[in-house]
């Protein structure tokens, strides 16, 4: 079983970061929040591994 990856893992971090922000372009805060929620669900499903997901939730809570 793999653990949650918490070291750099994305090629071209600046590109990705820009794309993430562009995705929210023109959205109200409410729409952005909704988009973020959808994004979390999509990514979580892609990861699938319950252990990794729990680790990610913990990391996000700064535990």
């Amino acid at each position, binding site marked *: 079983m793999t653990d949650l990856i918490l070291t750099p893992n994305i090629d071209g971090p600046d590109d990705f970061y820009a794309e993430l922000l562009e995705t929210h372009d023109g959205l109200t805060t409410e729409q952005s929040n909704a988009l973020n929620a*959808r994004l979390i669900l999509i990514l979580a499903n892609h990861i699938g591994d319950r252990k990794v997901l729990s680790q990610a939730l913990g990391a996000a809570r700064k535990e």
Partner: protein
Amino acid sequence: MNKIFETPLYPYTRPPDQDAAQTIRRRVVIIGAGPVGLATAIDLAQQGIEAVIVDDNDKVSFGSRAICFAKRPLEILDRLGCGQPMVDKGVQWNVGKVFFDDRQVYEFNLLPEDGHRRPAFINLQQYYFEEYLVRRALELQANGAPIEIRGGSRVIAIDQHDDHTFLTIDTPEGPYQLEADWLIACDGAGSPTRAMLNLDFHGRVFEDNFLIADVVMDADFPTERWFWFDPPFNKGQSALLHKQPDGVWRIDLQLGWDIDKEEEKKPENVIPRLKAMLGEDVKFDLEWVSIYTFQCRRMDRFRHGRVIFAGDSAHQVSPFGARGANSGVQDSDNLAWKLALVINSQAPDALLDSYDTERVHGAEENILNSTRSTDFITPKSDTSRLFRDAVLDLSERHSFARPFVNSGRLSVPCTYDGSPLNTPDALPDAPARTRPGSPCVDAPLGNGFLLDHMRGGFTLLTLNADAPDSITEGVTANRLDLPAEGQVAERYLGGAASAVYLIRPDQHVAARFPTYDEAQIRAAIRRAIGASQ
């Protein structure tokens, strides 16, 4: 014509006990002729145990209340001799549709597995469910079984003793006293027994109101379960439409917390809401309207010496998921054989503690599921609503999101994993679904079905294995040899070459082994009747 729920089915008649010079002692007294009290009494009486039901009313449930009955309770009712009329009358459905805002987001099919006598669900008004149970009880009584339903009999005082309970029962002709060796409190969520004995009932109350309306209409809505999140006709809330027999439709509308219940119940307020939902020109009559709130609560323990709680008196869940009556019937299924064995001195009193262990486990499972459904349907915070709406939004285009949609996880039978009555699984290659603790999975057998052959007592199922016709170790287990082929083999052998199962009277698996070993089976029986501690 009077509706069945307006017809007295067991009106008060003065029992001889009321005129006895000395207080009469009955074997088992059951308080409450709801689904659970009736099922328990029938089960006991079928085993020859005297069961007297007292109920303050003399009719079946007013209004439909429970409408959705699951496969496992139907199988239990088959054992009680009244599953067939329920299924004949009930409406079967498999398709559900989920709507969000103004559109359908997806549709599902329960796709029940084949090779079972009973369907995954039927919809049937609780008043019919109770009527068929009452009829079965009266039929047993007419045939000489020790069962009795006393209407118009309200229990007003309870005095607990070590080996019996002393009851005061009020009737239209005044009160009388009665003693019970065993008392089973099936007196519903508001249980007066619980209050009289000063017992706890902990849990969560959900701050929400639901309007429930049963309407009679000739509409060509299909026989499907329709659930709306945030629909235009009930903004910010939810709604449910579900079909029952006799052209009756169940409509559930979430109303929120700050409402005037009496106002909302008035037809002049209900009818416009329903028209907004069903369409202006649909013609309908209101059969029953009620407003309810949700609670998910349970007692710490269901057994208190000689007083035992079953059904809503012991645990209460929200209706989403249809787990109330369905789980209450499973309580009675679990309790009746144990109590009969203890009364007949075939098992130690400690067997009844396993009722507590197993059914508390069942209640926990139901409360967990029911709480989660309620949290999804009525989000309690902005963030919770944000994710809920995100799930619904995604579910329209992406199947991955659909399993998150929770409009009620419909009742599935409880597996008693970890029960002290189980012998550890000695057949790991056989399917997990028939592991110790699980209810037997039905399968076609001969011209009928497997569960038809397990209608009381312990059973020794064998597949590709020798065993004697019966074995007695305090109780007797009779052998049922199964063909090692077809769905029976799929469900009971799986990857194993041979199997011997010990099945309890409530059709739950107690133990399973690759072959018959007398000492092992004797030990498993002792354990299953609580005699090995």
